[in-house]
């Protein structure tokens, strides 16, 4: 009986400890743990020369930790498990992800600080056949998507008539287009511009950007103290022009 009682008290105490805001634990440990995938150009990537993370979001996190007066520690994660890392307390917040309703079910979003549009990519030799968004929404057209990305959810909405083909990272949707197994894929305007330079056989369908998407960091759902803290920091930094300088550094334009 005594044992059971101790066990119960122990359980209660651990839940109480869990209810404590991450803001406290970060300040106590002097370390901000940031989950990042390292596979999103130019937000978060690995520099082959130094084996360290670099990118827009990495700079944002370094600034945040500097202002908090704590060290920053980047925890590598993956798109499929980036949300699990938040719920399993592997890190205190993630680098930016696209806000989606599904992610919002299990994680909290901070104030947003970047917007981008979505464009379709097709092979250059097919650019006459697929010159509009509508032309890609047809029976017999295959659209490639990457599993777990926000584009996968959007592709279902944009192309209800087409066949969707989902590949799993590290395989990528654009490789399916290159290999001729899919007619097109959709991606952020930021990535599309880089891809057409690397692969001259690809081209952007020139029919406007769709679906302005909002980027924000993910924090544990329900930790209002921590979320408010980061959101306020983002607002202050926007006002001070920090984000504009950073956008210019990475040659980015927010919509």
């Amino acid at each position, binding site marked *: 009986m005594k044992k059971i009682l101790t066990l119960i008290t122990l359980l209660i105490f651990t839940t109480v400890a869990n209810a404590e805001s991450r803001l406290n634990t970060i300040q106590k440990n002097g370390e901000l743990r940031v989950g990042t995938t390292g*596979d*999103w150009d130019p937000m978060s990537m690995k520099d082959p020369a130094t084996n360290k993370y670099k990118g827009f979001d990495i700079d944002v996190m370094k600034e945040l930790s500097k202002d908090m007066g704590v060290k920053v520690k980047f925890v*590598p994660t993956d798109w499929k*498990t980036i949300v699990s890392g938040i719920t*399993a*307390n592997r890190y205190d917040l993630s680098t930016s992800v696209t806000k989606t309703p599904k992610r919002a079910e299990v994680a909290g979003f901070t104030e947003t600080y970047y917007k981008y549009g979505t464009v379709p990519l097709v092979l250059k030799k097919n650019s006459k056949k697929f010159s509009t968004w509508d032309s890609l929404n047809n029976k017999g057209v295959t659209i490639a998507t990457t599993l777990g990305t926000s584009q996968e959810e959007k592709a279902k909405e944009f192309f209800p008539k087409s066949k969707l083909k989902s590949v799993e990272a590290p395989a990528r949707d654009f490789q399916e287009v290159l290999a001729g197994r899919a007619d097109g894929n959709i991606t952020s305007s930021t990535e599309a511009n880089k891809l057409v330079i*690397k692969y001259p056989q690809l081209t952007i369908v020139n029919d406007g950007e769709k679906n302005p998407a909002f980027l924000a960091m993910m924090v544990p759902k329900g930790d209002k103290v921590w979320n408010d803290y980061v959101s306020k920091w983002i607002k202050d930094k926007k006002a001070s022009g920090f984000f504009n300088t950073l956008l210019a550094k990475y040659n980015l334009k927010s919509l």
Partner: protein
Amino acid sequence: MKFIKYFALLLLLQGCGTDYEWGWYILNPNNVEGLTNLKFLISGITTTIYISVISIILAMIIGLVVALPSLSNNKFLSYFNIAYVEIVRAIPLLVLILWIYYGLPIMMGISFSPFVSGIIALTISESAFQAEIFRAGINSIHKGQHEVAGSLGMDFWKKMRFVILPQAIKVVLPALGNQFVYVLKMSSLVSIIGIADLTRKANELVTTTYRPLEIYTFLILEYLILILLVSFCVRRLEKKLER
């Protein structure tokens, strides 16, 4: 025979005939960028080797411990062996890795580092296969030897240590080598929880170069060289034990 050769050549040429332009410059050691990229890719090799070697050694110990009860006449012990092997063998490795890394902190508040989580998952998964190999190896030694050793007054442990296991090791060595190769390849799955092994390094480099085909081809070569080395060592060991 000639026909087959020409046919294969034709297939190959067709494969090269697409308008894909290889971008091997990203891995060319003669320019600075290529050399940096190469070094970055190869730097994952120590992690891959550490994880695989530690896992296979732990799995061998656990495998042997799990295999021994199967030889006992005690029903409870042999059921333990069957239950362990059947259950562990049925869990996909990827699921086990994710469960240990993301599941344990939520369910029990136990939080292992990615490296330790990866080793635990690989070890558990591999130990079931090792147990079966050891069981088969021990069973392959003639029953008469058990009896003779017993009549010499040896107890179970002495019998195992001096008579059965030294012979069984020779029998199972090729199978163990096989499993080592398997673990080396399966260790690529730990990249999903952020361990910087060969595969993770390749995934990270793809992001900045946008050249997955070249990088994954190089990754195949890296694993190929590693595994050929292991095979070579196992064969040498086999020959040595034969003498």
